């Protein structure tokens, strides 16, 4: 993946949308309906200014560079596209992503990568609460720290946290795996630390390389499900 740098678009396979001058719908309509026939492989979005729903539901192997801060649900439901955001994103970035890559240079608000099935989500700075909530196969790499309730009910995929994790990390985890480098404020129900296997070190190394974030994989710990919630335990204390 190339760096997230915008240059003046000159090539005919490259197109710019200026959201200060054009409604968002023009961009998304182009990406959904008109892209295929044009030969455009690279779309620049300038002056995003926190607009919601930028490049949602894209279903094509196109590169989209957003130069600035995006609002809610940026690159939601992404399939195949490579979306780079040279700024911060609001809630729900790459929610429901199926494949492709979403790379955020800044921070992400709540629910980053929520319920995403596949692809790679990279957040270079912090991600807020509920990062990777109910993730279903996506890989998420966070260069900074994540907020409380991250990977809540996460079902599949991997969440790499290069900084610290907030409270209730991995609450009610299924088969998703978390790799954390910093401190964990607290584990959620059924989440615990496990020894790193050789395969885990390889996985972290590979994910960090794809995210272009440099750390020593040996510094990471594995958090996974104790699988005690998989079965109802009638003998357990049912007082809440």
């Amino acid at each position, binding site marked *: 993946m190339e760096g997230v740098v915008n240059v003046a678009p000159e090539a005919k396979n490259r197109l710019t949308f200026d959201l200060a001058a054009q409604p968002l719908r023009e961009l998304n309509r182009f990406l959904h309906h008109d892209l295929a026939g044009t030969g455009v492989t690279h779309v620049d979005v300038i002056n995003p200014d*926190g607009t919601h729903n930028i490049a949602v539901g894209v279903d094509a192997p196109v590169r989209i560079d957003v130069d600035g801060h995006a609002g809610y649900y940026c690159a939601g439901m992404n399939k195949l596209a490579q979306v780079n955001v040279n700024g911060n994103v609001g809630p729900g970035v790459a929610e429901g992503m199926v494949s492709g890559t979403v790379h955020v240079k800044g921070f992400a*608000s709540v629910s980053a990568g929520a319920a995403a099935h596949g692809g790679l989500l990279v957040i270079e700075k912090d991600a807020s609460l509920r990062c990777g909530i109910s993730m279903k196969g996506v890989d998420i790499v966070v260069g900074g720290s994540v907020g409380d309730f991250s990977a809540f009910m996460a079902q599949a995929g991997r969440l790499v946290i290069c900084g610290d994790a907030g409270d209730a990390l991995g609450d009610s985890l299924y088969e998703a795996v978390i790799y954390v480098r910093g401190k964990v404020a607290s584990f959620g129900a059924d989440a615990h630390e496990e020894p790193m296997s050789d395969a885990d070190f390889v996985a972290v190394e590979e994910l960090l390389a794809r995210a272009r974030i440099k750390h020593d994989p040996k510094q990471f710990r594995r958090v996974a499900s104790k699988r005690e919630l998989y079965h109802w335990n009638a003998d357990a204390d049912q007082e809440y």
Partner: protein
Amino acid sequence: MCGIVGLLVKKPQLREQLGSLMMPMLIGMTERGPDSAGLAVFTEALPEDQRKYSLCAPEWEYDWAGFEAEFIRHFGTEAAIRTKGNHAVLTCDEPAASVRPWAARVFPDLHVLCAGRQVDIYKDIGNPADVAARYDFDTLTGTHLVGHTRMATESAVTPDRAHPFTAGEDFCLVHNGSLSNPYQIRRKLEPLGIRFDTDNDTEAACRYFEWRMREGDDLESAIRSGFDELDGFYTFLMGSREALALVRDAFACKPAVVAETEDYVAVSSEYRSLARLPGVKNANVFEPVPEEIYVWRVS
């Protein structure tokens, strides 16, 4: 949903532009709160012995001259009144303890929106752009302000239930979210002689914090005690004489984003309403962490 905005200018020469800088912020939050809008602006302080009261009348055309004459006749004192349609700011040397009960008795159709030496409040139902134009928000001057666009969930759409809410003097609060125990708070405060103007949940939070501060808490401790007492979702933005304060509940379901430069601190529910501020592209932009109290003081 609702939208909150706040702006504190750090340089005295920017105080003249406070309203015009804020305008795109408030308008940018229209989708989050299209049914009412309001704003509290903190101005130069009146002398110690003077007070001003923001008043709201039920009709746009109101006999403010008659009101003023009756005020002067009753109190036998000087008063100045600045009017803007159904809103007026009365300046006088009578304390709130005299003015509020008198107004409630003689002019029961008027709402006293706030009292103090610095704060003016304008709030009404309608689209934020219309409300802002109605009261010339773009011409407002001062050190800091808090604004709100409302999408009502917890009480009716009426001018007095629009935000900001106020309690005591020179203190106001806007809220994005909903409280689940406002009546519990009311039942705690009303026996202490604290009266409520509306059935709105935000008013309960506002009066709770103001009560804590009268009991001796500073703003930070008052907010911290709210972590135990106030149940629900909230991003609260508060204005006091010398500061803006921001806090989000532990679950941070209600958004907030801050942009800070050498010239200003700007707070909004979403970045899109900060995007028109000068120099914002180079601002320190961050998302406030849940249950952390952010206070910015007027320099």
